[in-house]
């Protein structure tokens, strides 16, 4: 039916022109991370996204994962694709070579994951969760635990999951009822019993074994967060390095969902016959601490969905709008027999397209920048430098998760709108992207939780050091050479928005000091969106200044007059690089002028001191 497309130019631009990934090579840890090599890897990732994952995307949605005789059967083609994906070594891209990975920067991992996610988000649950679960064992596991599991998970031979949620314990994880009872004579091993729901890739036949990471309370431990411990609970017990006896875990049901039909969302029952064994990971009572480490990675991964899906929806909408002929130009409306034109000629369609593009590009810039902060923290010269990068990543994590997933979903809505009625039917596949994208604002901590994390924890912690560090970077740009450059109007707008954000944060601080937490928290979601808008505009405008320079060089080399719009338009049609750079500048302008003004509107909302939502009696 349709093909897979991705904006490889923008991905490369982010990595090589904006983040200047080549500079990481000076550190021993990344000495092998040649831009040329990374570029080759991106090509390979695109090829597999297009040729292995995308061809089974639609069937994954239509057929879905099924529960047959108590076992999950994945959609046709998933098993073969999983084999190719795993054998290609994608899971190990940024994993430490000590664990069998390639040790490349995390940001490269994200770039490849964005492509795979856009091509088939349903498929990516198994490798994605395996990567996360493997990371936890590698970080907190004993030597024995690492030797037993890590390499097999890096190669994809075994898969992994995260078992947190129970029917009565969703957002409130510590309310869980799962229990762990020490097994006499086998230190570290426990009998596990409990029910878990919403477990992605909780069962499937893609691998010989599935390694569940399971939260439970050891018998006699205190209620609440402190009594929660983490366990490694394999589907089949490991005997001599191989999957052995069944570990008494059954799949009770599969959820029927709005989207993600090709992802097996399982209700699992552990220890129905009192024969399920788990291995304590990371120390008794440390379950939530360990899990948080994984959650941070998972939140970034959700950001990938909030970028990859709208980015692909944009590519689809763009192509459709060039083919679909409806009506004549608005300026020709009164003409008799005016030419019929493709809908991309209509101003309202152009607005929608550029909006989806600008949101996707801002999300991508934010996501990659966050990962780049992580990479830089790994190679920081001292603690001060390390903190400089980690403070940014910590404050960006809830923003990447929530801003990208909310705005990304809305961008999918807008991309579907470009198709008109053809978007609402299945033929073009854009409705699937919309359905699949919705979950991202809900799981791994709802976006409401992210907003509370940002406002309640991240902004206040350490006397506001994270926010100061992050906005310090933004201010450096606002006050740098760009304020004299061709995008000075956008830089000024960013300056005003940043000031508004700072003032709102300050006023919330004062309100909270007076003991009123409810009012700021009622605005937490709005605050997170303001923050995301500022970060998005900062990154897009910085990128646009680089793109503008490159564009000017190309145009002057070719003797094109940039002020002659007709000549420029004609030229850009044939020069894909120049068209891309020019497009980057338009995205930044659109964002700063059409989206960023929301920041000041939201600041005004906060100022009203309107308490209706708190006072209303429902």
């Amino acid at each position: 039916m349709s093909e897979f497309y991705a904006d490889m130019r923008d991905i490369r631009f982010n990595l090589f022109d904006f983040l200047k990934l080549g500079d990481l090579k000076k550190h021993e840890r990344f000495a092998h991370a040649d831009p040329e090599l990374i570029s080759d890897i991106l090509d390979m990732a695109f090829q597999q996204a297009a040729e292995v994952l995308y061809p089974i995307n639609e069937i994954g949605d239509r057929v879905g994962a099924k529960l047959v005789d108590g076992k999950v059967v994945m959609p046709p083609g998933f098993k073969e694709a999983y084999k190719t994906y795993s054998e290609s070594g994608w899971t190990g891209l940024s994993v430490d070579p000590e664990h069998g990975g390639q040790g490349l920067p995390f940001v490269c991992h994200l770039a490849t994951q964005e492509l795979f996610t856009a091509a088939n988000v349903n498929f990516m649950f198994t490798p994605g969760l395996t990567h996360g679960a493997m990371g936890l064992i590698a970080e907190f596991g004993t030597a024995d635990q690492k030797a037993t599991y890590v390499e097999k998970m890096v190669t994809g031979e075994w898969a992994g999951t995260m078992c947190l949620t129970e029917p009565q314990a969703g957002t409130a994880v510590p309310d869980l009822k799962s229990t762990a009872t020490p097994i006499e004579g086998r230190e570290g091993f426990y009998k596990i019993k409990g029910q878990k729901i919403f477990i992605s890739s909780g069962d499937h036949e893609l691998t010989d074994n599935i390694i569940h990471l399971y939260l439970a309370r050891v018998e006699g431990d205190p209620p609440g967060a402190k009594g929660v411990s983490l366990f490694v609970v394999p589907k089949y017990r490991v005997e001599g390095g191989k999957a052995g006896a069944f570990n008494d875990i059954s799949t009770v049901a599969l959820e029927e969902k709005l989207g993600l039909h090709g992802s097996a969302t399982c209700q699992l029952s552990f220890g129905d016959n009192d024969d399920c064994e788990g291995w304590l990971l990371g120390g008794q009572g440390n379950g939530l601490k360990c899990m948080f480490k994984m959650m941070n990675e998972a939140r970034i991964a959700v950001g990938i969905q909030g970028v990859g899906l709208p980015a692909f929806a944009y590519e689809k909408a763009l192509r459709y709008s060039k083919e679909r002929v409806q009506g004549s130009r608005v300026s020709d409306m009164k003409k008799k027999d005016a030419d019929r034109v493709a809908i991309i000629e209509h101003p309202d369609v152009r607005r929608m397209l550029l909006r989806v593009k600008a949101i996707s590009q801002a999300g991508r810039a934010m996501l990659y920048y966050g990962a780049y902060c992580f990479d830089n923290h790994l190679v920081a010269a001292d603690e001060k430098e390390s903190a400089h990068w980690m403070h940014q990543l910590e404050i960006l994590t809830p923003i990447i998760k929530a801003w990208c997933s909310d705005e990304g979903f809305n961008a999918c809505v807008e991309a579907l709108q470009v198709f008109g009625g053809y978007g609402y039917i299945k033929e073009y596949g854009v409705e699937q992207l919309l359905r699949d994208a919705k979950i991202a604002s809900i799981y791994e901590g709802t976006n409401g939780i992210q907003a509370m994390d940002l406002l309640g924890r991240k902004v206040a912690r350490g006397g506001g050091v994270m926010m100061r560090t992050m906005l310090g970077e933004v201010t450096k740009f606002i006050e740098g050479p760009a304020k004299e450059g061709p995008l000075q109007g956008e830089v000024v707008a960013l300056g005003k928005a940043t000031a508004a954000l700072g003032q709102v944060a300050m006023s919330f601080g004062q309100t909270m000091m007076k003991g009123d937490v409810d009012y700021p928290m009622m605005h937490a979601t709005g605050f997170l969106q303001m923050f995301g808008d500022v970060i998005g505009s900062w990154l897009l405008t910085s990128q646009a200044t680089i793109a503008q320079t490159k564009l000017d060089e190309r145009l002057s080399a070719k003797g094109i007059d940039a002020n002659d719009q007709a000549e420029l338009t004609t030229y850009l049609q044939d020069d894909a690089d120049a068209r891309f750079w020019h497009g980057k500048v338009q995205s930044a302008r659109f964002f700063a002028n059409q989206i960023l003004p929301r920041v000041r509107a939201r600041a005004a909302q906060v100022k009203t001191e309107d308490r209706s939502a708190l006072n209303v009696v429902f």
Partner: protein
Amino acid sequence: MKILVAFKRVIDPDARIKLTADRSGVDTDSVEYKANPFCENALEEALQIAEEHDGEVVLVSAGGPDIDKTIRAGLALGAERAIRVEIEDTVLDSDLAARVFAAVYKEEEPDIFFFGKQAIDSDNNQCGQLVAEYLGLPQACFASEVVIDDDGEVATVTREVDGGLETIALTLPAVITADLRLNTPRFAKLPDIMKAGRKTIDVMDLDDLDIEDTALKIELVSLEEPSARQAGVKVGSIDELVDKLKNEARAL
């Protein structure tokens, strides 16, 4: 067993291309390149044979340093090393390319020299045949199946010919050109992409290879873009359609 594979890059077939103003060639600013699909089949077959017969696969390509990217993609798939013959690839015709490859053959003395049956840019379908002629080697073009005997002395090749399949046996060394149905090329694995950067690409020039006749036998006169598609017409009835097919299109 040593297998030499000619590996050519072509402009991405999905890209929109434009001619230079003087129509002497394609404007290569901001175009992307990929390996010629038939060359990928040739390489895949060579790799499979090498795996089965404990052999070595060597790539050979002609062009400037900018073709190294395509060569590295081939090395990532499993070729052990590569030879790049330094020449501007825009001034190559099939004959000069064949002379270059024949000279490389003499240096390497492989058991099999694989080619794609043609490159999808200029679609000449000449190189493999010319190389076989210059070297006096047996040739099997348009291969859809290749079986090498246990001793590594005979290749049994099924060829796709007009109206069916022809199976022939060749005494090695020989030239074989690959058709699309020969195999499904594999995907590169991440660790192999990493290793590819460390594999050797030996660079030679025409002097190193003692190629005396470097004259081009084909002169490119000019290039034309395909004419734009004409708008269609709606017909009112089947009779009208038949009439148009008969009298206007003269298709009946």
